[in-house]
């Protein structure tokens, strides 16, 4: 058998084949099929097929997170339809309003395990590469087809490999690395590819920081992304995993379309400018840009270490007049821990406001929609025009510490420049 990449191995496993090769189209059976507030629309499509029961309801995971708590009657009706579907189909992995963002909650609950495949009706399903799973986003119709048939056609992707070396400078995060890569190679630089990461600088990262990388690879055009699971991942999963699993690793000699080496010691804090994630510059270049709103949250950077980094910046400081700071923890577990650690108190004393765990204003549904002409700096992954619900608003992306420092001064700021 020729040496295989991670994607070739994972899709061979999902398709029940001994091997696959990039370019091949397979019928894959996902271990988990993820949907969120869009479950109601998928359910309408599913029932229109004339089917009453999902083939494997135990494989479904459903999270209410995209517009929570419901901002309008229509959103509330949508949630009610999702709850009814959950009851009708006996879906066990179902998570209510306030539990958190799907990718964070499924990671906390260890619903997907190394080597497994998760297909999600959400573009950031690439997230699950952090623990060595194959995660890919799909559309609503195909999710209905998965519910009906337990399988979906997938093309086995070619692979790009990124080798990470060097020591991380203080104040530089996994977010900055991702912005650097996307800035260098373009928002379509990873289009259709599986993106594998490796190297000592990767394994030096905390698990929370690792999660940022495959999450952000959705913005690079990737089909999926993969980080090799190590003992830290196995230890994290040990008390949580519901069944045994077999991690998958790429073979030595596997075929890569391209291999890149990034020395993280050369990185600095970065921002993506409106309205493109690949328009990336050092924070210093946009220093002084006024911001009306600073937002820390999302599946990319709404975890405990993100709030810790923000709290370290905010401690003993105040949000600037004319600027508002919105903090939305990625999950109820993150919120609880942030309360225990005193971060939430720090934020409130600084003049910030706290939102219900969920996606918040990331895709413009509610809880922080900007006014026309306003500038937001955000820890999210996406800054498309109109993304946060307002066409004529500007959106900058950065790490949580840069967002927090910008809230303190009222303009885009590198935290290293704040007065001690």
């Amino acid at each position, binding site marked *: 058998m020729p040496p295989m990449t991670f994607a070739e191995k994972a899709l061979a496993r999902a398709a029940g084949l001994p091997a696959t090769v990039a370019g091949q189209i397979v019928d894959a059976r996902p271990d988990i099929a993820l949907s969120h507030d869009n479950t109601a629309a998928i359910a309408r499509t599913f029932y229109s097929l004339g089917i009453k029961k999902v083939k494997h309801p135990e494989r479904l995971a459903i999270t209410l997170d995209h517009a929570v708590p419901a901002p309008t009657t229509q959103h509330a009706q949508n949630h009610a339809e999702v709850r009814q579907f959950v009851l009708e189909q006996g879906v066990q992995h179902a998570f209510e309003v306030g539990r958190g963002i799907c990718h964070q909650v499924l990671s906390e609950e260890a619903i997907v395990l190394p080597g497994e495949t998760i297909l999600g009706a959400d*573009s950031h399903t690439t997230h699950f590469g952090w623990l060595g799973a194959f995660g890919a986003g799909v559309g609503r119709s195909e999710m209905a087809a998965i519910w009906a048939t337990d399988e979906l056609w997938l*093309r086995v992707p070619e692979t790009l490999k990124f080798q990470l070396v060097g020591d991380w400078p203080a104040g530089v995060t996994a977010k900055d690395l991702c912005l650097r890569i996307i800035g260098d190679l373009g928002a379509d630089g990873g*289009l259709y590819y599986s993106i594998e990461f490796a190297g000592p600088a990767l394994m030096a990262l905390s698990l929370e920081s690792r999660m940022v990388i495959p999450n952000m690879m959705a913005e690079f055009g990737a089909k999926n992304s993969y980080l090799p699971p190590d003992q830290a991942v196995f230890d994290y999963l040990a008390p949580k995993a519901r069944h045994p699993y077999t991690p998958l690793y790429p073979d030595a000699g596997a075929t890569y379309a391209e291999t890149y080496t990034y020395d993280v010691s050369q990185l600095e804090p970065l921002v993506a400018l409106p309205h493109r994630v690949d328009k990336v510059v050092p924070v210093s270049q946009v220093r002084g840009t006024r911001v009306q709103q600073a937002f820390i949250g999302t599946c990319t950077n709404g975890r405990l270490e993100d709030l810790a980094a923000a709290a370290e910046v905010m401690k003993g400081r105040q949000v600037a007049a004319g600027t508002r700071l919105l903090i939305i923890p990625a999950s109820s577990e993150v919120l609880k821990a942030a309360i225990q650690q005193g971060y939430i108190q720090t934020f409130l004393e600084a003049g910030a406001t706290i939102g219900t765990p969920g996606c918040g204003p990331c895709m413009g549904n509610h809880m922080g929609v900007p006014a026309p002409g306003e500038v937001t700096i955000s820890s999210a992954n*996406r800054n498309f025009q109109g993304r946060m619900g307002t066409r004529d608003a500007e959106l900058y992306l950065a790490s949580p510490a840069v967002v927090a420092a910008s809230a303190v001064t009222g303009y885009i700021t590198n935290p290293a420049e704040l007065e001690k």
Partner: protein
Amino acid sequence: MKFSGRTWKYGDNVNTDVIFPGKYTYTVTDKREMAKHALEDLDAGFAKAVQPGDIIVAGTNWGNGSSREQAVTCLRQAGVTAIVAKSIGRIYFRNAVNDALLPIVCPAAVDAIEHGEVISIDLAEHTVTCAAGTFSFPPLSPSVMAIIDAGGLLEMLRKRLAAEAQG
């Protein structure tokens, strides 16, 4: 199969948020209503002027971003038959196949086509023809064409389920 249509030409990196804004994703559920918001934040005049049979011509990474299928559905409902692009976001490409909106990757044709001109697409010959010439594109795989020929993934599935019920 051969067909032709009037073109609407756009640039690089047109994302799903400007094709179908996220604020409508849980409130606009009627497909005809989706068509009224097609390209709302990119080209405000499109939804009113688009005609059945029209073709979108785009640069690189058309439809990058969100997995939202409405970004395909709104164009299909508006009568758009094909996207001819330099490259297409991967989930958008899948959604297009599954909704039988023909995704054609043909960079040379995109450079040659003028906004508004009528072009023709020949699926048997894998060519796009415009005033400036005829350009080849790589054929879609047989399994992908089978989905498009069936009218989309759900139509294919309906036929399969009906056959199984009889079988």
